[in-house]
């Protein structure tokens, strides 16, 4: 059975301007985030979601995590529908979103992880061991007892990933996971992702980083204006530059960096 199945999913966000809109210039109307998107992910597969800002990558992750519900179509995780069986889906999915500050500032990293692990029903017996494990995987052991209000962006990002990992999800969703990470941490993180995939975790990564996509992904999904433009395997020995040219060719956008060269 596929770990994730997206079947003809559409999602539109409607913006209703404020009552006294003549006082300002708030835009009304709607944004089509996803248009009839279908794909599936097998167990242990790593998928990279590529696409420009506003293409629907984060919406895709949020739909799988049950943060959002689809307007049309269905999203299934291990056969469970996100609309009807959201509780079962949430037990299987871990998500690290790009919001850095989604922690309790006056708790330490370890205390934050302990809190979220309790809500994720990790037994008290296992919690200590798992928290130590994810702190090590994300390189946060030294900062484990620091209050998170003192954290940098990169540390917040790593803590978000640790939080997603602590429940040992069958499906791991990562939104721009290495955006604020330094080079060494990024390399270590990519190794962790491949190791998780070997342990049968399905991983979806929304990223703008072509090197990341070629380093960790088995497959690429290219989204543009809410439509799925491409769904293909990462070619053997495909490098970041080749993927970059594929991306610009498919999206029709202009690669200004290439023009400068």
């Amino acid at each position, binding site marked *: 059975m596929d770990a994730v199945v997206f079947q003809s999913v559409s*999602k539109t*966000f*409607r913006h209703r301007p404020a009552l006294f809109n003549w006082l300002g210039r708030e835009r009304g109307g709607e944004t089509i985030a996803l248009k009839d998107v279908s794909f599936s992910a097998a167990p242990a597969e790593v998928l990279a979601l590529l696409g420009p800002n506003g293409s629907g990558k984060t*919406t895709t992750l*949020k739909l799988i*995590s*049950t*943060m*959002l*519900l689809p*307007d049309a179509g269905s999203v299934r995780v291990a056969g469970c529908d996100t609309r009807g069986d959201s*509780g079962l889906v*949430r*037990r299987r*999915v871990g*998500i690290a*979103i790009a*919001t850095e*500050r*989604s*922690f*309790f500032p*006056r*708790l330490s990293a370890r*205390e934050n992880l*302990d*809190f*979220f692990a*309790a*809500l*994720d*029903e990790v*037994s*008290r017996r296992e919690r200590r061991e798992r928290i130590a494990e994810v702190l090590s995987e994300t390189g946060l052991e030294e900062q484990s007892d620091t*209050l998170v209000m003192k954290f940098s962006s990169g540390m917040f990002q790593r803590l978000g990933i640790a*939080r997603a990992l602590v*429940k040992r999800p069958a499906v791991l969703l990562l939104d721009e996971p290495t955006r604020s990470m330094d080079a060494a941490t990024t390399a270590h993180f990519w190794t962790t992702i491949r190791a998780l995939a070997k342990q049968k975790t399905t991983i979806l990564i929304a990223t703008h980083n072509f090197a990341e996509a070629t380093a960790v992904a088995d497959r690429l999904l290219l989204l543009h204006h809410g439509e799925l433009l491409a769904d293909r395997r990462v070619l053997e020995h495909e490098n970041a530059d080749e993927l970059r040219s594929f991306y610009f060719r498919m999206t029709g956008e202009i690669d200004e960096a290439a023009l400068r060269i």
Partner: protein
Amino acid sequence: MTSTIDKLQAILRRDLLTAVRHRSGFVVTLVGVFLELAAFYFLSRAIGPGFRPGGVEYFPFLLVGTGLYTFFVMSAQAFLSSVQEAQQTGTLEVLMTTSTAPSELIILSSISAFARNLVNLAIYVFAGVAVFRASIQANFFSCALVLVFSLAIALALGIAAATLQVAFQKGSSVLWLLSSGLWLLSGTMFPTQSLPRPLEYVSRMVPFSYAIDGMRRALLEGQSPAAMSGTLAMLAAFALVLLPLALIALSLSLRRARQNGTLSYY
């Protein structure tokens, strides 16, 4: 059940740690309690011993009224603030993706907010009795019954405020409107019989007026549960109706927010 207790412990621990790490917060609360009680004490002295609403001295009357009113409003406010803060930081969205059902999470979080304010209420009443010599004649069993029903009603108010916050991002405004109305109609500072007849009728539909009246009768007059069965029955009826209604409304508003993508709007 074990997992629910575990989650409640985690939430209580989070809130306790956050509270103690705001080092001055507890001291400020204590000073606030004493200043408020002093103001009510001197107000009752200024009015004089002749004013005995419901046959009790005015200071104990105020002590129970304002103590319970503050408990209701501050609990709902504390709960609402935690939802608003979670929206602003993005924690709410993440919390909604944990294995804990959203309604269970909200109820457990509210228990924590209410526990803190229950401690504040106990300090308030204790200080009123110990420092300002308010005379009480408590029937503790009646007090406990009133408190249990009051907690259920206050929980419903807190959940309703959270619902409005999730649905319209306007929980604070609605709570302010409600608390102002309650201040007028629930008999906090004066007996509801002093209100014009139409407003007196409206006050009979306000659950907090029964809670405050019940607590005064239990704490200040020592009435038994049998003697105040009518009030207790009304409180139980309000709790049985309002709590499920608030939970249904919350569940619907969360579903709507997930559909519209407005869970983290504030």
